[in-house]
């Protein structure tokens, strides 16, 4: 496994210089020119300091303008959901030589679930995910993912930022840094969190060393969605309007006396934006504006799927309103160290109908061709049993799928070995997932960079290959 736990974005294998110049196409002068032109790191140049979230073009036309990332926290098991392994069933009970996170590995354990093939692609899906199964011909399965840590929090950090340590910008922060967002009255990067709280906390959607404008904003699923969106109890909208008017009035003379400071005008505008945000953000999470049929489609009528369904519906409303990047965390954890049947049955039940609803809704609202949907966890689970009926963490092989804008449906890419232990065919790293996601958004992952403490960083560190077979 790759041991490099942190990297700088500076070192790449030296290629032959002649070859390199031939690739660059323009010879030395061109190279130097390019060097000068690209000193800014954002996709289409440096963000406007006054409107840092203003939408900007990427490096090339985007397939996807928004992302909805369904983050299955805890690590769902591929062999029990989308990637059945006959060999594992056959060798059920056999002991193998294997290293696992918590030690004391049990024997190989077959999946407790039945599988069936769906769609023209004939993709296998387990009996617990029959609604998601309807969409397999629109989904590209990546079955050979691997990551760097088999501990939850470093692995979640890595899935979010490419680096298994806190303090680095998350993918959503990179994307909004590169592209801004369509709606200036809402944050560009919204996180609909795990109702139980996030392992590793806010650093999962942090801006790291990027400007703080680009950090993810955690929306609460109920009540007022953002912190400080609610007025103090004794302030009515009219009071606040009057305060803002007085503020503008008193700021005016100061502004005139400080004409050289662009910041001051931006700050005055930020108060007006905040005022509008109070209405718009409250509105966007108000699911009562949706029909009962729509709410049912997302499983909101059902106790088991209500929470995740609400977040999926909110994600659609956010994307529809022009939010660039939405992350939806599953509730609790797919972390089935024991009683895998119960754990995965319950998590499937919580997410199956909502995901079906989301995919269906995106299609019928014309958002399918502009929204990239990602499903996956921070790692997968072991083929051997733990505590009799569970499975331990497995960073060596796990499954992620993508669907929607720019994705070739009905594709299966990569494989783990016969028992689902390690990525064996076309291994896909977290950097590869990130590179592909950025590519679909019109960003060259090698060119979206930020200079910090003398190093030019990027989301994909010094790695990342596009997963071409899943691109449409």
């Amino acid at each position, binding site marked *: 496994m790759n*041991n490099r736990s942190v990297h700088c974005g500076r070192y790449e294998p030296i290629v032959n210089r002649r070859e390199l110049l031939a690739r660059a196409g323009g010879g030395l002068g061109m190279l*130097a020119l390019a060097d000068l032109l*690209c000193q800014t790191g954002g996709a289409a140049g440096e963000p406007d300091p006054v409107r840092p979230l203003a939408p900007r073009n990427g490096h090339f036309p985007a397939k996807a303008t928004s992302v909805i990332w369904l983050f299955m926290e805890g690590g769902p098991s591929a062999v029990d959901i989308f990637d059945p392994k006959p060999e594992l069933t056959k060798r059920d009970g056999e002991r193998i030589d294997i290293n696992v996170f918590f030690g004391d590995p049990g024997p190989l354990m077959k999946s407790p679930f039945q599988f069936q093939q769906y769609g023209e692609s004939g993709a296998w899906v387990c009996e617990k995910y029959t609604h998601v199964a309807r969409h397999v011909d629109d989904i590209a399965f990546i079955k050979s993912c691997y990551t760097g840590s088999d501990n939850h929090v470093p692995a979640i950090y890595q899935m979010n930022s490419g680096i298994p*340590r*806190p303090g680095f910008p998350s993918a959503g922060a990179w994307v909004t840094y590169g592209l801004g967002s369509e709606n200036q009255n809402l944050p560009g990067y919204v996180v609909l969190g795990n109702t139980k709280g996030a392992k590793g906390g806010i650093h999962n959607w942090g801006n790291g060393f990027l400007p703080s404008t680009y950090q993810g904003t955690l929306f609460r699923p109920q009540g007022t969605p953002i912190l400080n969106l609610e007025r103090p109890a004794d302030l009515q909208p009219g009071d606040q309007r009057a305060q803002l008017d007085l503020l503008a009035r*008193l700021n005016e003379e100061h502004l005139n006396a400080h004409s050289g400071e662009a910041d001051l005008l931006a700050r005055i505008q*930020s108060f007006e934006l905040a005022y509008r945000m109070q209405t718009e953000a409250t509105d966007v999470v108000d699911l009562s504006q949706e029909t009962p049929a729509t709410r049912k489609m997302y499983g909101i009528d059902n106790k088991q799927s209500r929470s995740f369904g609400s977040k999926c519906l909110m994600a659609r409303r956010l994307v529809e309103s022009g939010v660039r990047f939405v992350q939806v965390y599953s509730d609790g954890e797919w972390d089935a160290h024991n009683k895998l049947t119960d754990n995965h049955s319950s998590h499937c039940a919580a997410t199956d109908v909502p995901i079906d609803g989301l995919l269906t809704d995106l299609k019928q609202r014309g958002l399918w061709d502009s929204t990239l949907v990602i499903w996956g966890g921070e790692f997968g689970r072991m083929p051997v049993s733990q505590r009799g009926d569970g499975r331990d963490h497995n960073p060596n092989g796990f499954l992620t799928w993508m669907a929607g804008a720019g994705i070739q449906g009905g594709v299966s890419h990569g494989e783990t070995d016969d028992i689902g232990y390690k990525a064996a065919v076309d291994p896909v790293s977290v950097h590869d997932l990130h590179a592909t996601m950025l590519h679909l958004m019109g960003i060259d992952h*090698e*060119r979206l960079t930020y200079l910090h403490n003398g190093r030019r960083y990027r989301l994909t560190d010094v790695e990342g290959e596009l997963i071409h077979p899943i691109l449409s």
Partner: protein
Amino acid sequence: MPLCSSLPRMSRAARASAWLLVCCLSVAAPADDASPARSSDGLPPAVNRKVDFVADVQPIFRACCFECHATGNEEGGLNLGTRSRVMEGGDGGPILTAGDSVASRLIHRVASVDESSVMPPEGDRLSNEQIGILRAWIDQGAEWPPEADIADPRTERAREHWAFQSLQSVTPPEIDRGRWGANPIDRFLLARLDDEGLAPSPPANSRQLMRRIVFDLTGLPPTPEELDAFVAACEVDREDALQSLVDRLLASTHYGERWGRHWLDVARYADSDGQEGDKDRPHAYHYRDFVIRAFNDDMPFDRFVRWQLAGDEYEPDNRAAVAATGFIVAGPHTVLGDTFLEEELLRNRYNELDDMVATTGTALLGLTFGCARCHDHKYDAISAREYYRFLSAFHSGDRKEVKIGGKGPKILAFEDFGPEPATTWLFERADFYDRDQQVQLGFLEVLLRGTTVDDYHASESDRPKPDSTYQRHALAEWLTDVERGAGPLLARVIVNRLWQHHFGEGLVRTVDDFGVRGESPTHPELLEWLAHDLAANGWRLKRLHRLMMTSAAYQQGTEFDPEKAAIDPAHRLLWRRRPQRLEAEALRDAMLAISGTLNLEPFGPAFKPPIPKEAIAARNLKSEYPADAKDDPATRRRTVYMFHKRVVPYPLLQAFDRPDLLQSCGRRDQSTVAPQALALLNDPFVRARASDFATRLVNECGDENGLLVMRAFNLALGRLPRDSEHAAAVTFIANQQRQRETRDAEQTAADIRHAAVTDFCQTLFGLNEFAYVD
């Protein structure tokens, strides 16, 4: 020059060096048409004179060949840096036969007419003159004095890099122009302004000046009474008033609270572990208190540095010295159980050591060490070997809660495991299973001037703590050695940090990067003069504060001038003062101070202010954040004493760009975003302070709104309102009273007025003038 990343699949190093090559070639002589093109042997003829290797030959190698054929990048196995390697040749065999240039492959390659084999492979060819020099050198015996060997061109480049030079004694320019002639700082600045045809701005008025100085040194607003007294004193003797103000503030505890906070950013200090469990560190605050006291006591900065790295080895019985080592262990930390895979435990251990190395490098030397964890630094002269030799200083110990002599409070500190250094390896590509190459403590070659690591080891008799390796002690001695160690760079970096906080930006804008990729200083001689002054005068920072704040440059007004801005748009030459935004801490402290509720109790365990439940987004914490924290006097202390829980940051501070304290941060972001406005409009803390401010005003001013508005402006902004402002404010309060009367019929008139005044006070907190100090 920043790195380019627009060309896919291309080596960054190659890209940058391609740029260097452009520079080099553009100054190299074009093909020499005057000399005969080719002689009978088909090669350009040797020049007809005695050539000197160092003067004539090596510059050609350096400009045209080193990029690919020297240490760090030996393409084709060829290294032209040292004589022995040149004589070895490359993968294709020897390249040079002394005495016979026609038989030397080197000449045939540079003189080749075949595009695919000529060296260098792209860019301009060597001129006939240059080839002739090489031929003559070979024909004359290929002499190469041993001292001309270049082991590594990066080291050579680094040796020339301004930041790595010995400290120079610089004489300020001779300029005498009234107020701008007395302070050496002004003479340096004025010389530059003169060069650009820029004139400095007139001084700020004494009221603005005091507000600027008080916020700058203490992070608190001056009271109206202090302001009035200062204005009066200035009318008598401005210079004298200013001197005594600065002296008074430097002697106040609040100075350390303000400037200690700046250092705590650099030290990435927080009160919890971070990571998943984010366990509280109830005994970490001793380090924070050490920092504040050190600033207040004007501890010499070299001792401040030595104690932070090895205080326990210098003075094992001194609580402050031991607490100072909290610097090393202030970063994030995880306790992994024994059940974790060995690989995970090792990765965690070396990540934590990397944090210690990286923070030491960035905080003290302004150098990015992190790159060298996996490979030799591509630009700065930091090799992977040097990284691991440096890491060795921390490898023999770990964080520990200690009691001095078994007594007193527990202190989070760093301690070696014993007297024997732990074995340290050079991990190729950071692979911690690669244990072929053992390394021992060592420092950066480029910052050693005729010394070796052995010169810094304490003698046996000078080791009051026998169960410690004294490796950190040696490191600290080297770091603070001005004559022959890293002292000059240490001085430049801290002087620049001070400058940044006083003037808004460093003389070197990349305050955490003084390497070859960092920005050059705008006023190199001034920086040098300041660094030299610091080191030559006992490393006292207060002396520098005085120098900077009594300069005319510091005291300029803020008035903008578009014509000057056209000459210097980035405002790097300091022809005026730019308003400075209050950081998160100063903003919170100012609201408390103005509302009359600031609790000035210094030092001791950190306080935990209330954080809304919904802002505590984290799960699985080993120490939960208390749900019942109160907004009461105990939580109305200065922000530097607030408990900073890494995974649960205080929302108001987070909104206003407080760094996450996971890595060293010398320069905060200054964002302007809607969540900040939302906080000022709706955060319960802000509303509560506005309410306290209203209470104070009503108490002090009685029923008269006109008087109340005057007092409010004076307290919040340090000045009285203009007539138009006064009228607008009085009207606002009256309107709010009327609005509230109509809807809250049950409230008393006093309550209604209080609420209306609160609305007004909260508006003052949102003013640009409140957040930006002129």
